[in-house]
């Protein structure tokens, strides 16, 4: 861990100001950043402590909810409005990490957490995300946990968040502030694919800071699930996860939304597969067909080829759970 300056921001404007110039990082819960600093992956010159900013409220907002960037994962998951109106989000948050981590980790930090790629974390190895241009040993190396969608020749890392998979399915918006004011970013445009610049996880511009996650008004309380498949039943990142939300009109799917986690550099949605389900019956055959549309685009490695079939099955099961109104329990690890 390197030496760094520490400043505490009293206002958002101060935080934005403190971010400029130096190689600065924001710190709130620190559950990811401090690890990365200990591994010498992040070597900031300046830490900007934003824990005192007034961004820790969950508020009603245009019929939906606005979750402040500093709301902890635990507070968000157990908030009654979140749990009742956006249960897929509560479920996804509780599928991640541990109680201790969720007590410290914040909404904004969860959005911006970095990949769990072994090579990214190990500064004795090359990594294009950590040090652009050095190469990607995960390609041809140990890549069991890596991406099967949207990869590039420079990077096959995944985004590790559970929360973000639900936010993707919910069509959330990310409100940010920066040197040129505030803006809102549709969730699908917040994280990005690695392309030739895998060092950038998202589309935040220099000096920008996340203010809130805005959830639009919608009814997602009955037909949803967050299904997470992993190598052990708790405290493990997803091999594949699915956040699914169905709007049903009698026996017809009026709208289907589902996002996958653990399979790409960002939560993965497939508009064609979702559109396919629109107007169709919520049957296994239709879910299989939708899943097949998704996995057509898969480009796996040797070590993660199993994820293609696992993703297919997870989509089918997730949509089945959502359609039946039997969401995956967070506490009972048996899969519904």
């Amino acid at each position: 861990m390197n030496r760094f300056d520490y400043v505490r921001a009293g206002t958002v404007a101060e935080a934005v100001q403190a971010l400029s110039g130096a190689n600065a990082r924001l710190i709130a819960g620190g559950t990811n950043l401090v690890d990365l600093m200990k591994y010498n992956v992040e070597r900031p010159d300046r830490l900007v402590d934003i824990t005192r900013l007034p961004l820790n409220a969950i508020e009603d907002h245009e019929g939906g909810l606005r979750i402040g960037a500093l709301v902890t994962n635990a507070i968000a998951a157990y908030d009654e409005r979140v749990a009742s109106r956006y249960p897929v989000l509560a479920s996804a948050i509780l599928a991640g990490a541990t109680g201790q981590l969720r007590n410290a980790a914040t909404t904004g930090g969860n959005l911006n957490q970095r990949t769990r790629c072994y090579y990214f974390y190990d500064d004795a190895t090359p990594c294009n995300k950590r040090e652009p241009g050095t190469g990607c040993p995960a390609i041809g190396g140990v890549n069991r946990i890596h991406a099967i969608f949207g990869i590039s020749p420079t990077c096959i890392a995944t985004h590790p968040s559970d929360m973000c998979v639900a936010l993707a399915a919910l069509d959330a918006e990310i409100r940010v502030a920066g040197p040129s004011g505030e803006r809102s970013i549709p969730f699908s445009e917040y994280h990005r694919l690695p392309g030739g610049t895998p060092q950038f996880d998202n589309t935040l511009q220099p000096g920008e800071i996340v203010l809130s996650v805005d959830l639009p008004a919608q009814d997602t309380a009955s037909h949803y699930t967050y299904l997470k498949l992993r190598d052990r039943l708790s405290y493990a990142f997803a091999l594949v996860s699915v956040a699914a939300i169905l709007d049903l009109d009698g026996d017809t799917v009026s709208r289907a939304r589902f996002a996958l986690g653990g399979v790409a550099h960002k939560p993965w949605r497939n508009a064609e597969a979702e559109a396919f389900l629109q107007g169709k019956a919520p049957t296994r055959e239709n879910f299989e067909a939708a899943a097949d549309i998704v996995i057509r685009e898969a480009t796996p490695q040797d070590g993660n080829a199993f994820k293609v079939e696992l993703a297919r099955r997870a989509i089918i099961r997730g949509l089945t759970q959502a359609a039946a109104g039997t969401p995956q329990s967070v506490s009972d690890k048996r899969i519904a």
Partner: protein
Amino acid sequence: MVTTISSTGTDSFVGTARSRVDGPAKVTGLAKYAGEFAAPDLAHGYVVSGGIAKGRITAIDTTSAEAVPGVIKVYTHENRPRTAWLDYNYRDAVAPPGSPFRALYDDAIHYSGQPVALVVAEDFETARYAASLVRVTYEAELPAVNVGAQAELAYDPPMKRAGIKPPPEPWGDADGAFQAAPKKVANDYRLAVEHHNPMEPHASTVVWEGGGKITVYDKIQGVSNSHGYIAAVFGMNKEDVRVLNPYLGGGFGIGLRPQYQLFLAVLAARDLERSVRVTLTRDQMFTFGYRPDVRQRVSLGADAEGRLQSLRHDALSGTSRFEDYQEVVVNWSAILYDCDNVALTYNLTKIDTYTPADMRAPGAVTGVLALEIAMDELAYETGQDPIALRLKNYSESDRTEGKPFGSKALRACYAEGADRFGWARRNPEPRSMRDGRELVGWGMATGVWESLMQQSSAQATLTADGKLTVGNSTGDLGTGTYTILTQIAADALGLQMEDVTTKLGDTDLAEAPVAGGSWTAASSGTAVMKACRKIAAEVFGMARAMDDSPLANVDFDRVVFSDGRISVAGDPSRSVSLVEAMRAGGVDKVEATDSAGPDSGHAKEFSAYTHSAIFAEVKVDEDLGQIRVTRIVSAIAAGKIINPKTARSQILGGVVMGIGSALEEESMLDHTIGRFMNHNLAEYHVPVNADIHDIDVIFVEEEDRANPMGVKGLGEIGIVGTAAAIANAVFHATGKRIRELPITVDKILG
């Protein structure tokens, strides 16, 4: 003078469930571990780990690191103070044959993660930061780390490792009998490389005492090993070195050998004439020993009824370039099952990693896994119940040694375990049992581990206030050694456990070996009991010599020690308290030291093993490859159980580790870089609470006479066979026979 030593005093505590005597110290934080001891003016060392697996260092630039305020010195191979020259001096008490690794020895890189520098600074944070500034330039060569790809270079290790029995000479004609056998199974098996991952990372605190003397707190499973190593490597008198390690936060075998942080901490402390601590990071815990990669083939031939006609077990194990690590992998097959045509082979091949290390039931976890999956396969091949097949081939004697077993209550393990589990209700047909969406599988396996004893001494001191202190230098790995020694000592002198203090892990105490191999209860337990009984005899002598002694004319073997008194057996009215006797004898303390070792006469006549039968229930969501181990019954035959509570915990821990082995644990090696990549506890998975359901432990009655207490040891038997039982249950649930563990999602889907 009374010379007869009766075997025990009373039996008040031995054999009863007792909470750990060190429990309060552990849960309140009073128990200190090697990296927690402080010293005035303590300097902190941080290890710089190398990034390549093979090659040499062409340049090492420490100038930026040295320029950091607070940095005291940076050690590399270029400025390392002189240490011993000969390999012999580096060979610790449990080292395998070869040239032990020497940190900072020269520019050669032998494995990825090798320590290449030590930064010593005034505080830990400064040392860690400065370590990140050390620039190492390498000339790298392509490493070879794939055991399978090195199979052509296999060899029979020319020097055998002490204490590790090589495979016996073959008997009969295994290959011929296999060809002729009507029923056959022959398959390859592999268990992933595992790292021990004790919760406490390795650490050494070296306290500079002045005048060339040091006191060392070292994470080790027995301080005598570090003591001898330091003296030999640094050319020090043993009297000038004291090593302590009162507690371990888990050993599992990785604490058997002194590790490089000890070498580096002592090196720096002697050079700086200052106290130094070196603590390894979690990642650095992946830069030394591990359970080796062993490629196995088991070939079983049987008659139509399942009687074994041929048994062949071949193993190829990876080892480092510099040491021939060896463990017992294949012998178990011929120890467990009776067969007239047996061939067992065990070979090594060298790879560019560190030397593997003993890891809980080393060799048995690996070898019995393959054997017991193969036996399950044979059960299906011959249409037998898995237990019936095992009983049909039950060995009545150890044919690898040509000796009967001193005791072997394995039949009782099968019977009681099956009964508790409800095995009789099992439908043997794979995929025949369901619970809702999940397939249910019931599998079983056998476990076996050697019952060992090592030469150990122990000391005991009884003071005139009736308080007893006992101890020796061995370590309590968290297994309950403090507690059982307290029980044994209390019973030997008829005291309450509260009156007994047990001290361990200090080279100032009577010498005992490292704690490993499940030998500590038998070895240290017997030594403590004998030392206490010496005191008993001496105090009895004082009691009998008292004026008008109620014990006059009574022989030692006719008295009972209980409630702090010596009384005539059957006549408690005739008694003298220990305190009175000592007062009458005019002493304020009585001290004794005694030692115990294996009974060579018994060992010549009998083989000694612990056994177990493990039953596992799994529920498998086949569609998604998810496995839950919902029930385990582990029935253990391990002689006398001194403390059913700590004993049960030992087995629970072994079973949990076995579940990890079956489903989760895997150190993933990048074959190009030659490095274990998932080197932290987020990516290296061990079971979490959510993975663990019912575990039922049964201790069956077993009487054994290999040592006076009838104890056989429990540290490892709980893990052996557990993974095989789970793998067999997965087959029963799904019809998929998975022979490469861990059984992860991809293998269920595949």
